[in-house]
């Protein structure tokens, strides 16, 4: 028994050591500064950035998860850098969908100072007066934004937003296992890859693919066209292995699935792990923009504008683009990127290649609801067994309740009878 105790002690000590490891290691890791060899980077404008020093200003930043460089792989820890430079504290929290962010904003629970909505959501927020016009004098780095990103469809007067990242939806496939190149969206409906196809989990992206296949506008409000798209998705369902978002990475990397639509920037992250993967971008694919906006109830508009400006410092934007791997609209930042990224036609294509791409616009409330209904219908379609499981389950529950209550009553009567006997 004594040696058992010894083992226990050793185990406990080992655990303590393992837990303490990171503490020993953290000082050893020197903060690696990225040096863009030979490329000139303008210095920060100290005078501009020190306006709020010592004034205890805090801003609430609300961003997508994993959508800002936090100091991985020797890239910049952007929020820490901003705090050091300006003395403004950044409260950083995350959301997972445009709709989730919108709901949170609409509820009035919290006031945020900077948000990162996508194109169609921006037009909706403008319509509902939930974001405010920006003062571009406070965002001098706006000059770095490429011309093709000015006056976008979602913000035609360019009053409310500064572009953050953009990209296109592509079709990622495993060239080695499929054995040939892929040149069409139709392949997502190819029965050859049954059970090896992945599909978007969100309705907007999934419907966009079906509408592209049909050759319709991805923003159609025509019910007939939407019904046809839903029909296509229903046909596809038996072939689909799973409707996923982040699991796409793992499933594609480990050859569990062979073909999946996703965002082109993320394809490179997958390819790093699995070199057999290739991507194909359809001509009429969905192009998306995420931009920075300031909600109407922001308490620190100027500090928020400073933050937006900082994210457009070429060095900051370059590190951020390298971390996220989406395309940056900041032309100075693009110059600082590694050649292989900068010259990649998928990430930074020539203009004519974007001619036929389609951006989402905000749909009417009715259409949104209709699409969601159709989508629910698609996802719950093969659950025919539900038709009889539910009634059976309900009947079963009622029966159990009945039997139980009868038993209870009997018990009571028995007890009462017993008591009466005792009382006598």
């Amino acid at each position, binding site marked *: 028994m004594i040696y058992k105790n010894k083992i226990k002690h050793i185990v406990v000590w080992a655990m303590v050591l393992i837990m303490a490891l*990171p503490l020993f*290691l953290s000082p050893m*890791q020197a903060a690696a500064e990225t040096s863009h060899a030979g490329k000139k980077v303008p210095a920060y404008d100290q005078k501009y950035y020190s306006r709020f020093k010592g004034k205890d200003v805090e801003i609430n930043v609300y961003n997508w998860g*994993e959508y800002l460089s936090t100091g991985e792989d020797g890239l910049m820890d952007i929020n820490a850098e901003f705090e050091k430079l300006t003395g403004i504290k950044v409260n950083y929290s995350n959301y997972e969908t445009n709709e989730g962010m919108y709901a949170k904003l609409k509820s009035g*629970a919290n006031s945020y100072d900077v948000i990162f909505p996508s194109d169609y959501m921006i037009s909706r927020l403008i319509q509902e007066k939930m974001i405010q016009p920006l003062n571009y004098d406070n965002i001098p780095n706006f000059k770095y934004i490429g011309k093709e990103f000015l006056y976008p469809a979602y913000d035609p007067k360019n009053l409310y937003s500064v572009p953050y990242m953009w990209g296109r939806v592509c079709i990622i496939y495993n060239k080695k296992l499929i054995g040939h190149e892929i040149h069409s969206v139709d392949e997502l409906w190819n029965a050859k890859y049954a059970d090896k196809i992945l599909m978007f989990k969100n309705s907007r992206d999934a419907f966009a693919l079906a509408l592209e296949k049909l050759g319709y506008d991805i923003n159609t409000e025509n019910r007939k066209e939407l019904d046809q798209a839903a029909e296509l998705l229903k046909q596809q369902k038996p072939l689909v292995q799973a409707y996923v*978002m982040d699991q796409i990475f793992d499933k594609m*990397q*480990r050859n569990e699935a062979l073909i999946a639509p996703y965002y082109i920037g993320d394809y490179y992250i997958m390819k790093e792990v699995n070199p057999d993967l290739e991507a194909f971008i359809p001509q009429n694919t969905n192009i998306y923009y995420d931009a920075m906006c300031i909600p109407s109830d922001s308490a620190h508009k100027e500090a928020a504008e400073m933050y937006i400006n900082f994210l457009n410092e070429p060095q900051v934007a370059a590190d951020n683009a390298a971390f996220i791997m989406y395309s940056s609209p900041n032309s100075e930042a693009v110059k600082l990127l590694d050649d292989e990224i900068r010259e990649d036609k998928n990430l930074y294509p020539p203009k004519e290649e974007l001619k036929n791409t389609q951006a989402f616009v905000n749909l009417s409330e009715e259409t949104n609801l209709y699409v969601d209904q159709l989508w629910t219908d698609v996802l719950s379609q093969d659950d025919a067994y539900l038709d009889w499981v539910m009634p059976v389950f309900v009947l079963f529950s009622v029966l159990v309740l009945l039997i139980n209550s009868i038993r209870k009553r009997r018990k009571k009567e028995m007890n009462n009878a017993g008591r009466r006997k005792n009382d006598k």
Partner: protein
Amino acid sequence: MKWYSKTYIGVFLAFLYLPIMILIIFSFNDTKGRTFTGFTIKWFVQLFHDAAALDALWTTIVVALVSSVIATVMGTAAAIGLEKMDTKLKAVVMNLTYIPIINPEIITGVSFMLLFVTAKKWLATMGIDFQFGWATLILAHITFNVPYVILNVLPKLRQLDQSLVEAAMDLGCNPMQAFLKVTIHEIKSGIVAGFLMSLTFSMDDFVVSYFTTGAKHQTLSVMIYAMTKKRISPEINALSTVIFIAVLAVLVTVNLLERRNEKRLKQGSLKWKGGAAR
């Protein structure tokens, strides 16, 4: 132990612990995929540099601890009160107690949000600036934790031999002393179980936290859920590893201490009922 019961237990434990083991293994993987390519500790190093992740961890732990402690005190008091109620009233209150457990979390979360938003607006008219944050998170967590404590403590109270309490009073205890020296000891395992359950539920909770969290802090679950558009960073694996080992260390220490106590008690040939919670 027959061979088949051994196999059964082995398979059962494998189901429980293999996923955690795999998660731990991959927190030492030097690429981001799920194929093991080499050993590294860089994720741990990065985790300790990632202010956002550490803040989320801190928030999660504080909210879990504070809400569990308060919920345990409230739940225990409520259980004792319930025990003394007359049957009709007790049935009503018990059914009310079940509601937070039966209610879908999303409804609980949304209704909390609406309640706090209303409170916020109402306080704003009186010139009080009320923000979502620690208070809203902890209040919501206390609310869904209390029923679990009540349900853990009530059975113990039913088992409690009332004559013990009466005996203590006969021997000169005032009611308070009797409660502290006898009742608490007898129901201790229920209280501890309720506390641990609250702690677990609070750490796990995503839906309610999502709707009641403020702009300054977020819990781990909210942070991880938000990563699902891109990809969950291996830092989270590292963090889970740290949490798992910390919990394991606590459990091992508690067990070792208990062993010692038991030995001491045996030597002192003292025996008292109601060991620690299992």
